[in-house]
């Protein structure tokens, strides 16, 4: 089966350091929400960084719509329609909300519609309109996450990858964040979500992928992964109660 995005047997790491990913596999189906789970340091963030070209693929392959992404720069991968919202630090804290949104369109060759696109996004997310002249770093965590996610919409991406969007947020805010994600998925955007909180992540996903020690352990429909005994083992005690 060949998906929209295919990661096969990828080996990658930081600089000349040891391989952090060592046999990562992933098959992304269009329009679905995929959740990558795994314990601390499993390599979830590293996998996303490798897909967007921030880390070199040492072995294996990553293909998007059948074309290899190997050796491509982050800006080239972005232009093909893959957006990445990194863990925690996604924004420019001393730029205003509006300027942050403009940065979202930085890679656009044709900027004639940019301001209009930003207006539309401010209409959809009124909080961003209200705070357009405020520095992004002075907003609450939930508002910042909203901005980071909304900013990807400027480019009308095909795949949006979210690295722990719920991190450090209150449960009520987490709900909002996931509902924005659902909204994006309903528009046909394919989502690749990384969550440390396996329960919560899988509940909001269609497909689950379990990563440990840089290797894909197994994947399957989210509901099945959720109840798989191997998960209980992996998260012994801690996370599954959440």
């Amino acid at each position, binding site marked *: 089966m060949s998906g929209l995005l295919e990661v096969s047997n990828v080996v990658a790491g930081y600089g000349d350091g040891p391989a952090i990913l060592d046999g990562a596999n992933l098959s992304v189906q269009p329009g679905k929400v995929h959740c990558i789970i795994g314990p601390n340091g499993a390599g979830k963030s590293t996998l996303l960084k490798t897909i967007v070209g921030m880390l070199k693929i040492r072995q294996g392959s990553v293909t998007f719509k059948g074309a290899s992404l190997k050796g491509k720069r982050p*800006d080239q991968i972005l232009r093909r329609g893959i957006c990445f919202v990194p863990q925690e630090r996604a924004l420019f804290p001393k730029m205003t909300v509006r*300027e942050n949104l403009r*940065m979202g369109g930085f*890679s656009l060759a044709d900027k004639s519609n940019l301001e209009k696109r930003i207006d539309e996004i401010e209409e959809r997310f009124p909080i961003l309109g209200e705070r357009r002249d405020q520095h992004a770093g002075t907003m609450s965590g939930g508002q910042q996450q909203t901005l980071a996610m909304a900013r990807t919409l400027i480019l009308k991406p095909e795949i949006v990858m979210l690295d722990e969007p719920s991190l450090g947020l209150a449960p009520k805010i987490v709900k909002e964040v996931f509902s924005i994600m659902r909204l994006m998925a309903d528009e046909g955007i394919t989502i690749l979500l990384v969550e440390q909180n396996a329960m919560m992540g899988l509940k909001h996903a269609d497909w689950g992928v379990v990563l440990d020690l840089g290797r894909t352990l197994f994947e399957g429909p989210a509901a099945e992964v959720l109840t798989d005994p191997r998960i209980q083992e992996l998260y012994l005690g801690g996370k599954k109660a959440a």
Partner: protein
Amino acid sequence: MAEVIQILILGMALGGVYALMGSGLSLVFGVMRIVNLAHPVLIMAGAYVAYWAARLYGIDPLLTLPIAAVILAATGVILYKLVFEREARSAKYSEMTVLLTFALAMVLEGALGTAFTNTQRVTSPDYATDAFFIGDIFIPKGQLYAGIVSLAIISALALFLKYSRFGYAIRATTQNREAAELLGVNVNLVGLVSFAIGIGLAGAAGSLVSFVFSFFPAKHWEWIAVLMSLVVLGGMGSIFGTVLASFILAVVAAFIGAYFGATWSTLTFFVALFVVLLVRPQGIFGEKPELA
């Protein structure tokens, strides 16, 4: 009262010059995390460009300013390619650059000393020794012009950073290099261009300095203390902070100089550097952004 206004004006004029001397340093630190201890000696090089242009060809240092800026910016490109580019991704990068730029400062000082000797120099266009009088108050034309030109350049820089596409890229890279790269900014190019602009600003500052202070190669060590206190007080990397710190410290130094003597005036900057590092190491504008 007249005396207070007099001191204030002199302090402000010097503050303008310091602001330009410090803003290039601040820009380079902000984007590249390079603590450029060679910045003052590069200002010195700019001053020599102005000096020789005036002495050999009789060109006014204000007219030499763009030439000095371009020559130094080109020097910046070469230095960046030779020295800094390779280091840019290393983890110990910031610490490394302190040692690297320290060595660079020594080498450049030696080169300037060999080429131009350690004689005190100053360019003396007519306005450098002239002044406006308003009642009892005098405003030295040289310092006034230098201050005005300096503020004009900084304003142009601020507009460029605020409104141009490349300015967005520079600010974004300063605030969050990884996110900038993810949005399609070529952060290596931004690093190179910012470094060139920063060193170009040193060249521009040098031609102003050439008629405001007398100079000789080894004097850059004196300027380091002044510039470090400006960028630290301003919050490392914040150009606006550096400008504000320049005015505050220059005015304070002017008052201390007037009432307690010139030795104490210089000490203002050392004391400020020390106190800021102890009390508020992030400077005036270096507040920690809330990202949680």
